[in-house]
């Protein structure tokens, strides 16, 4: 379901990621998902955490450029074809996916995938209607 993702702007410079993770560690912030959108010039680090507001503030205070973005986190069966079912659902209903990534260490028989979709509202309703409405356990 809808969760808040933290996006952090990073220059392509040695040690930036190490600095960020060290900062978050010092504030006892545990990462549930982490991914980087990498371009030739810069990167955007995307994080899922338990306390997004606090995480954003920690980053901003340390001088990083961070903002919150809404994404959809979908808990699905951890079995072949589960992701294909969700993709088909989105595709049939014209919900465009900008990117997706998985949440670290699935719990039990569930796998969690984060989707960034163009029409968040529509995506959310669609998931609910199709039984993908288990709240994410962070």
């Amino acid at each position, binding site marked *: 379901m809808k969760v808040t993702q933290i*996006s952090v*702007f990073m*220059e392509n410079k040695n040690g930036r990621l190490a600095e960020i993770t060290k900062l978050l560690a010092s504030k006892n912030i545990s990462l549930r998902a982490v991914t980087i959108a990498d371009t030739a*010039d*810069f990167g*955007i680090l995307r994080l899922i955490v338990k306390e997004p507001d606090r995480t954003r503030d920690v980053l901003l205070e340390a001088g990083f*450029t*961070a903002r919150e973005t809404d994404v959809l986190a979908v808990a699905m069966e951890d079995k072949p074809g589960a992701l294909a079912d969700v993709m088909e659902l989105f595709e049939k209903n014209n919900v465009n996916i900008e990117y997706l990534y998985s949440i670290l260490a699935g719990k039990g028989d569930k796998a969690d995938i984060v989707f960034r979709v163009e029409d968040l509202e529509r995506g959310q309703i669609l998931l609910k209607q199709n039984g993908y409405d288990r709240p994410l356990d962070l």
Partner: protein
Amino acid sequence: MTVYTPEEIEYLDRQALEALQLLRLKRVITQALATPFYKERLGGVGIKHPEDLKSLDDLKKIPFTTKDDLRDTYPYGLLAVDKKEVVRMHASSGTTGKPTVIYYGRDDLDRWTGLTYRSLKACGCDSEDVFQNMMTYGLFTGGLGLHYGAEELGMFVIPSSGGNTRRQFMLMKDFETTVVHATPSYMLHLYSQMENMGIELSDLKLEKALIGAEPHSEDLRRKIETLFGIDAYNSYGLSEMNGPSVAFECVEKSGMHLWEDAYCIEILDRDSMEPLEDGEIGELVLTNLIRHASPILRYRTKDLTRIIPGSCACGRTSRRIDRITGRTDDMLIINGVNVFPSQIEEVVMKVPEAGNNYRIVVRKKGTLDVLIVELEIGPEILSDDTRDLYALKGRLVDALKASISIKPVVELHEPGQLPVQEGKAIRVVDERGNLY
């Protein structure tokens, strides 16, 4: 009055030269009085008629004209003739917004061509030469300026304009170019590309390079001469004073003759604006004596140089100025194009999502200059979508290209990564070292 042949004019004694200057100055004052701008300026110092100017010394009464004056009177405020008399305009960078525009009537162009003809001849060019003009043709005066003088001299002119190095080499080789006109950095660029493009020095018939439009040292001139095995001659000009051939080196290569029958030279202390002795470095202030459509009196070039004392071995009597040793303002010269940091700031401020923290860096990439605009990405402009950030970069590159005619590299940076000195952000960093 005495009528001189063009050749005689180059060798006039001081007295005759000054008499000619006064005569031409009065003519230009007549033109200036036809513009509301100068009518008021000159009226303010008691010049209501050209005959109110009794001697060349009276020029000092006239207030300076600045680039800002040209911008403020844009587009037609300094046009002294009916628009139908104008046959061409040129323009150069303003400090912000509008460019500074210069108009030429038929006779103005002919007189300017007379100077470019004279300059080419002075450095030994003749009708046997094949002249490849690698300066940009367009609003910039560098290309068209020398073009007509070269035709007048009977040179075989190849108007190749700037860029496209592979084609430049092809033309140089196939048409046996003997003289090129280019910026010093483009000459170095050509050399650096020779091996890459399969060109040997022996494929070329090059004898001379006329170099200008950007500052360069004597060492750089020698380097160009040695690399190509040619002679390189220094050229100085600015559109406010017509364009190239305000001052040009003769075969002696001992400073640039500033054609005094066409321009009144003053070298003034950069702080007090008081006149300096020959040999002392100060701001070059010029009055155009030969352009009637756009009269410009006592123009502050913001270029620093000195008059070289003594006479030249060539016998020409126009005094020589030294190579430009610096600027009194923050103007940058990037691959021969004049750019003011204020122009860049204006563009950055107009792209609201660009924020307002930026830095301008100029550095050498190989032999050419590259302009980098580093932009800080704050939380308010951060998008989670990399495409949005690329689109922002693209918009900024396009807007800057439109404004300053140079395609910059826009880099996105995290806040606080741009260096700050004593609490004040450094806006401009020129990493090219000592250019002058």
